[in-house]
């Protein structure tokens, strides 16, 4: 009873409670209790998000905080898109947390609590139906990410974090300006209400709203690492610890989610004078991001940097595909998002293990000595590489197929196909070069001494298993993403739930 009435807010409350409990002084050996709390909370969160996914099947759920009704109060809205993103976050977080519990969380203080706060911010951003609240949750996730990025300390991390923090502070300022512009014109911050008001604007007011919308695109583009704003990403992701980098696989997707949410709901097809704002920019910038990412993958001499550029490629692919603005395209984006988040997380963890076992050569793509668990890691890398490149039989192949299929007109096909296929080819070259250097061309002599516990390898295997699961259940998943796309293209159900009938749902 209690659970079903407050189901929408529980995914936010749970990590917050867990983090607060973890912050308590737990005696001489606090880490044991903190790990137990964290893993328990993450497991519960997975169950909760599955329940949320089932609950939103009937239509969006609206939760009015403090029972202040929209558009005056802040509402949390769970629709299919939010529910899927929350499930994805928790599915990624659990293996990463298990991995980090084997010592990585001891490198700095309060890793466990920061991890949960990070989840709190990410999940909150997926759930909120209010633009200013989105800003607040962005700040929550940024503040924890600033600290997590520094986890373990060191000169390189410090500098990467400084860049990241300063850029995001400037980004937050731009976010506030765009919120101010949109509030000044529409007089509301509720997304559904704003969508209705923006659609009615004409003349100068519409122009100002368009300016506000484009500023929002800049902010979300910064979070998502779109082309002119991606420079922070390779450095930050390549220098931080494995578990943090793996968790950050979802961070750029928060930016993509925000773009999808705001630019289908507020600046979608029905937005009057501001309709389809920024889609042409997304198309060209997405393509350019894709190209730059492919060059980066080929040019990197460190496996971590290669994977960081794989993130850039995935962002370019998703945003370009999204800008084609058809149901098929959005569905393809969602499927690809699931795949790319999970596989990048797995790859970051795997690279961490490989780097530690190789010793001095670490993750540099050079000849090094054999690893202690050479065979196992080699197999895992092989599977992960095939999946991330997008070769059959794994979900990357299916995701790319959906994306290629989504391009309909001649111009779309002429630009998207060569870039997606070309980048796939470059990824294949880069990863096979890395794989053969690191796993085949090893130095003769004794293998390294460092072994990793089975638990850590199991955590990575779990992530790889989700990829296999995504491949096997591709059909139900893709019909679900099509339902999401349908909801996004026809946002009236969302608007009605928030502004109209949603009132009676809330107790």
């Amino acid at each position: 009873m209690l659970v079903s009435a407050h189901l929408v807010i529980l995914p936010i409350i749970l990590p917050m409670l867990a983090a607060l409990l973890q912050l308590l002084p737990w005696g001489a050996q606090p880490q044991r209790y903190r790990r137990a709390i964290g893993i328990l909370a993450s497991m519960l969160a997975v169950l909760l998000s599955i329940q949320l996914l089932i609950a939103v099947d009937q239509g969006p759920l609206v939760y009015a905080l403090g029972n202040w009704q929209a558009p005056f109060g802040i509402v949390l809205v769970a629709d299919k898109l939010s529910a899927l993103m929350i499930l994805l976050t928790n599915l990624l977080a659990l293996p990463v947390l298990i991995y980090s519990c084997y010592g990585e969380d001891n490198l700095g203080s309060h890793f466990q609590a920061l991890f949960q706060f990070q989840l709190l911010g990410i999940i909150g951003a997926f759930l909120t139906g209010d633009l200013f609240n989105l800003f607040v949750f962005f700040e929550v996730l940024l503040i924890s990410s600033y600290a997590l990025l520094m986890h373990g300390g060191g000169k390189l991390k410090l500098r990467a974090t400084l860049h990241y923090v300063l850029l995001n502070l400037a980004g937050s300022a731009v976010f506030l300006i765009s919120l101010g512009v949109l509030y000044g014109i529409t007089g509301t911050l509720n997304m559904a209400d704003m969508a209705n008001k923006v659609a009615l604007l004409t003349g100068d007011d519409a122009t100002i709203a368009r300016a506000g919308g484009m500023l929002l695109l800049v902010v979300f583009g910064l979070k998502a690492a779109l082309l002119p704003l991606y420079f922070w990403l390779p450095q930050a992701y390549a220098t931080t610890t494995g578990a943090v980098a793996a968790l950050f696989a979802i961070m750029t997707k928060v930016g993509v989610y925000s773009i999808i949410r705001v630019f289908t709901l507020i600046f979608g097809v029905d937005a009057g004078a501001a309709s389809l704002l920024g889609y042409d920019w997304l198309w060209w910038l997405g393509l350019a991001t894709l190209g730059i990412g492919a060059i980066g993958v080929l040019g990197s001499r460190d496996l971590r940097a290669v994977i960081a550029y794989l993130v850039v490629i995935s962002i370019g692919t998703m945003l370009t595909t999204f800008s084609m603005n058809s149901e098929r395209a959005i569905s393809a984006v969602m499927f690809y998002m699931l795949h790319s988040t999970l596989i990048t997380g797995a790859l970051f963890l795997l690279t961490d293990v490989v780097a530690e076992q190789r010793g001095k050569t670490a993750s540099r793509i050079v000849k090094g000595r054999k690893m202690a668990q050479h065979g196992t890691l080699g197999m895992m890398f092989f599977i992960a590489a095939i999946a991330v490149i997008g070769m059959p039989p794994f979900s990357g192949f299916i995701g790319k197929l959906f994306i290629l299929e989504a391009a309909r007109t001649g111009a779309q096909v002429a630009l998207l196909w060569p870039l997606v296929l070309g980048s796939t080819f470059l990824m294949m070259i880069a990863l096979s070069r890395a794989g053969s250097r690191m796993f085949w061309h090893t130095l003769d002599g004794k293998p390294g001494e460092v072994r990793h516990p089975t638990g850590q390898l199991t955590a990575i295997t779990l992530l790889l298993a989700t990829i296999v699961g995504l491949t096997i259940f591709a059909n139900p998943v893709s019909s679900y993403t099509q339902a999401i796309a349908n909801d996004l293209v026809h946002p009236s159900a969302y608007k009605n739930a928030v502004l109209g009938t949603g009132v009676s749902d809330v107790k």
Partner: protein
Amino acid sequence: MEALYAITVGMLTACSVYLILRGRSFPIVIGITMLSYAVNLFLFSTGRLVINQIPIIGAADQYTDPLPQALVLTAIVIGFAMTAYSIILAVRVRGEWGSDEVNDTSPNDGEGNR
């Protein structure tokens, strides 16, 4: 009043952008602080500039919009904490690298290291 207000916000923003584009961490942090001032003023003005009115509808002919004031308050709190964090970070970077230049390493320094 609107013109004066707009010029103030514009000047603050322009100066902060200039400072943020500098190459050392201290001017950048100052620039970001200044930018947050500009943003707060701007947010405040989105409820329109009204003098000597209460934020209650119906109590008088004119009223002032309370929401931007709440937004500014939130933005101030967050901005304050962030500025403190970035100052500490900048000081740490200055200590560890021996320089407050933001970009002077060659990109290959970091390979294989953490």
